[in-house]
């Protein structure tokens, strides 16, 4: 049974539909990538999965059960979004940002400590900057903080929206490597990317065009060939 099974999902902003029936299936433990051009509906898909946008049709099955409810309930169920543009809390410190990441598990002090250690082991930089205001971090550090904050609630499915946006190639590589590490530690990852470099580490790729999944690939070589062509050249 897949961890996430989306069928005929429809959503949009106000009366403007963006998703016209999305079908995708993500296996537990996999590292999946959603590719596509600007405006294809990638971010809309993640926001709908996270409960920030209402679905207007279709169904999302998570662990075999229909997924509904507000964002807070979905975080508690283990679905955590790392939003596009990082969205760290700028006037709070790195430490406080991470503490709030554990909001849904805050009463379990041991788990919070354990998760904080895990985050620091993946992003040692965040330990060094613990008392710095998040708004004063560099773009790369803010991205690490956004992902780290997402890990604080012990997610089962991490949705990462455009982690490479605005980062240098070297930083992008570092962030992708960290995501791979997170995946290897057992967290299922669904990343939205425009940077096709991420395909090297993915084991499933979905190509999205105009609000639909138009191609699905698996196996790294075929994936790169087919998915990239479909996403960027439309064939």
């Amino acid at each position, binding site marked *: 049974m897949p961890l996430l099974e989306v069928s005929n999902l429809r959503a949009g902003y106000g009366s403007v539909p963006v998703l016209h029936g999305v079908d995708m299936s993500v296996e537990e433990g996999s590292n999946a990538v959603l590719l596509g051009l600007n405006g294809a509906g990638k971010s809309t898909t993640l926001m709908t999965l*996270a409960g*920030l946008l209402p679905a207007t049709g279709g169904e999302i099955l998570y662990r075999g059960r229909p997924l509904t409810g*507000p*964002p*807070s309930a979905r*975080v*508690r169920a283990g679905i*955590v*979004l*790392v*939003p596009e543009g990082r*969205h*760290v*809390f*700028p*006037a*709070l410190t790195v430490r*406080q940002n991470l*503490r*709030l*990441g554990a*909001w*849904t598990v*805050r009463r379990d002090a041991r788990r919070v400590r354990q998760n904080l250690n895990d985050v620091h082991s993946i992003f040692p930089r965040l330990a060094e900057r613990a008392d710095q205001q998040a708004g004063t971090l560099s773009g790369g550090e803010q991205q690490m903080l956004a992902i780290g*904050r*997402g890990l*604080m*609630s012990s997610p089962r499915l991490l949705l990462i929206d455009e982690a490479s946006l605005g980062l240098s190639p070297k930083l992008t590589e570092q962030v992708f490597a960290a995501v791979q590490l997170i995946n290897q530690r057992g967290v299922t990852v669904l990343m939205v990317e425009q940077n096709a470099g991420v395909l090297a580490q993915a084991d499933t790729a979905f190509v999205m065009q105009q609000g639909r999944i138009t191609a699905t690939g698996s196996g790294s070589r075929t994936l790169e060939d087919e998915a990239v062509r479909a996403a960027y050249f439309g064939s």
Partner: protein
Amino acid sequence: MGAFFALGLFQGAVYGLLAVGIVLVYKAKRVFNFAQGEFGGVAAFCAFGLTVALGLPYWVGVVGGLAAAVAMGLVVERVVVRPLESSSRTIMLVALVGVALFAVAVTVLAAEPVPRVMPPIVEGGTVDILGAGILPQQLILLAVLAVLAAAMAWFFKTDLGLAVLASSQDLRAAQVVGISPTAVSRLVWGLAALLGGIAGLLYAPVGIFTPGFMTFTMLVPAFAAAVLGGMTSLPGAFIGGLAIGVVQNLGIYLLGQQLAVPGAAELGVFALLMLVLLIRPQGLFGKAV
């Protein structure tokens, strides 16, 4: 002059108490809450009705008054604040002025607009402080202000307080970590109303009170206190409140009594406010933007 200083200090305590509530709402929502005074007004009238009119025990009046204030806060949150969440801050501000005037009007209709006397928590004569006669009620007021300002400063260090701050900085991000914006909004308004209610219950017995007594005489100095303290600082609200009270009364003494200047209290307050805003626009304890 010492007596005026002491009078000002204790008068300033009620400004400080209102300012703590104003700062709470501003920190959490970036909204100027003009309804803060009326949470106290409603609490005082309910407590008066329960104790003096119905003859129930004092503690029933206190609990009933505070419950009425919190209920009003939650209703205001649901009926006024939440529907206007995405409108401009000016619209929100005008709506909250409307809430205050509405509450005053309801009080006038429900109870005759006559002066009333609320019995104090502790009976007894005045205590001499620097030559001024201070009521036990005023001593309690100042102590409660100190405790509540410290408690609110501590609150913003807890997980719950951080969640309130986080929601004001980035609502989307707060939702992403699983914080419910609705729950935060209810918490903030309930808490602000509770603080306002406490201010009203403690201040009503200090003199005579009439409908709108908190809004029409206390709210503007309380805003001055909050701005003086930096608008987001709880120690600032505490110090700001006391400073406004002291400056008002020193103004009465120095300008009014010695030089016979009319409106001396207001003159003192606004001179202080302008001076601080010129030298330190972020207020005494505010962070520079």
